[in-house]
């Protein structure tokens, strides 16, 4: 049986048939690309099919991860990013760096954020702040026990040749013994989301407290692989002087 059909196709296909097949392959590939792959992978949706099939959600989930409700207002997004004054210059003798500039001015957008998260044994969570390049943040996190963590950022614009969804840059990593606190000043090296991934490797529940203040406009949360973008707290929630009585130190 197999021998018979072998004889049948020993005559090679005609030029016309090969050409037709190639063109048909090209057309089918083109249609699938334009209607499905490009909308899902890059958010490029010339025919609107991606939107109709909700495929463009995949692209936005990978790139900006910002739901419409939390998107920055147009007035904010058109503002140019702050220019970074070279703040510190390494001292030649290896001692403390030389201060070259002392501040980075921002037009507006000062926000605060305070969170308390209970992490069950083995559980991980992510908190990242959407900041423009050059925007600053002061942060402090404490935990009731040691947590493994990675302080990292996902730039909106990836370097040429990098995968569009999985790219990130590590600022500080402890995946060995872990720490139970971290405090510092952070200046965003790129526009994008910057923050922490924590993981509780202890057998008990750990309470994590994160407080920060800075120039970010929304916050990215990841809990149980559920990604959400939430609003920040308004600085006005902090009771201002004179609601807080002065305490004389000396």
């Amino acid at each position, binding site marked *: *049986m*197999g021998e*018979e*059909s*072998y004889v*049948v*196709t020993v005559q*090679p*296909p*005609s*030029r016309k*048939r*090969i050409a037709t*097949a*190639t063109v*048909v*392959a*090209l057309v*089918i*590939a*083109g249609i*699938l*690309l334009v209607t499905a*792959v*490009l909308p899902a*992978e*890059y958010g*490029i949706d010339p025919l609107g099919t991606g939107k109709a099939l909700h495929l463009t959600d995949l692209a936005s989930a990978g790139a900006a991860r910002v739901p419409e409700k939390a998107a920055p207002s147009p007035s904010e997004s058109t503002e140019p990013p702050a220019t970074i004054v070279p703040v510190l210059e390494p001292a030649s003798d290896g001692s403390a760096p030389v201060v070259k500039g002392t501040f980075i001015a921002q037009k507006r957008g000062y926000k605060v954020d305070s969170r308390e998260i209970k992490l069950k044994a083995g559980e991980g969570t992510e908190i990242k702040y959407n900041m423009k390049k050059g925007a600053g943040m002061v942060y402090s996190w404490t935990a009731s026990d040691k947590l493994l963590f*990675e302080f990292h950022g996902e730039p909106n614009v*990836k370097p*040429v*040749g*990098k*995968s*569009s969804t*999985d*790219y*990130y840059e*590590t600022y500080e*990593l402890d*995946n060995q013994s872990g720490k139970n606190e971290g405090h510092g000043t952070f200046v965003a090296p790129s526009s994008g989301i910057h923050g922490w991934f924590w993981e509780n490797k202890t057998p008990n529940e750990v309470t994590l407290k994160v407080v920060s203040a800075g120039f970010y406009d929304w916050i990215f949360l990841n809990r149980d692989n559920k990604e959400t973008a939430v609003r920040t707290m308004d600085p006005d929630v902090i009771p201002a002087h004179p609601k807080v009585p002065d305490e004389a130190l000396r």
Partner: protein
Amino acid sequence: MSRNLLLCLILVIVLPVGALAHNVSKRDATFVQSNSGSAIAPFLYLGAKHMVTGYDHLLFLVGVIFFLYRLRDVVQYVSLFTIGHSLTLLGGVLGGIHANSYLVDAIIGFSVVYKAFDNMDGFKRFLGFQPSTRLAVLIFGLFHGFGLATKLQEFTLAKNGLVTNIVSFNIGVEIGQVLALTGVLIALSYWRTRPGFLQHAFLTNTALMVGGFMLVGYQLTGYFVA
């Protein structure tokens, strides 16, 4: 036999969606980056995983062995492919050659189109002669290796134990290739015993070509957009 055809078409169209784990995934990436010193087994696993889930390499291999009936031929062609991609994988990472991954992946997509067209007897019909298939497999093997190298280079690899880890990754790639090939060969040899095989071979290669063109379009768009 039309069920076989349908199965094959579904496979070609669905495979790219189902196997999106093509890039070394985020969790693996953290491991690769935080790793210092030689770690043979993990890199073996990563290499094998990359090959088994890397549909572009698999589509090309399906094209290559599609009309190879004798095991000796299969071994010969696959060895040429292996020599090609091992050379550029090792050379690329060790030499620190950073090729643009979108362009390399586009060429890999083109290799699928090339082999499908070749399987249709396109070159004999249009050029009047058959360009060396062995040479083509070797040359495209070199590009596939660059693709593997750029994937591995997306992470800062620790200098400590670098060679051991890359060689482990490479051996893992070969293990993954043998695993994937075994599956493909079993399916192909079964299909060949059915009367429908040769009648649908042409159509199957057209479907393969669709997959190749899609990879080219996907990667080229990425090159211009990202």
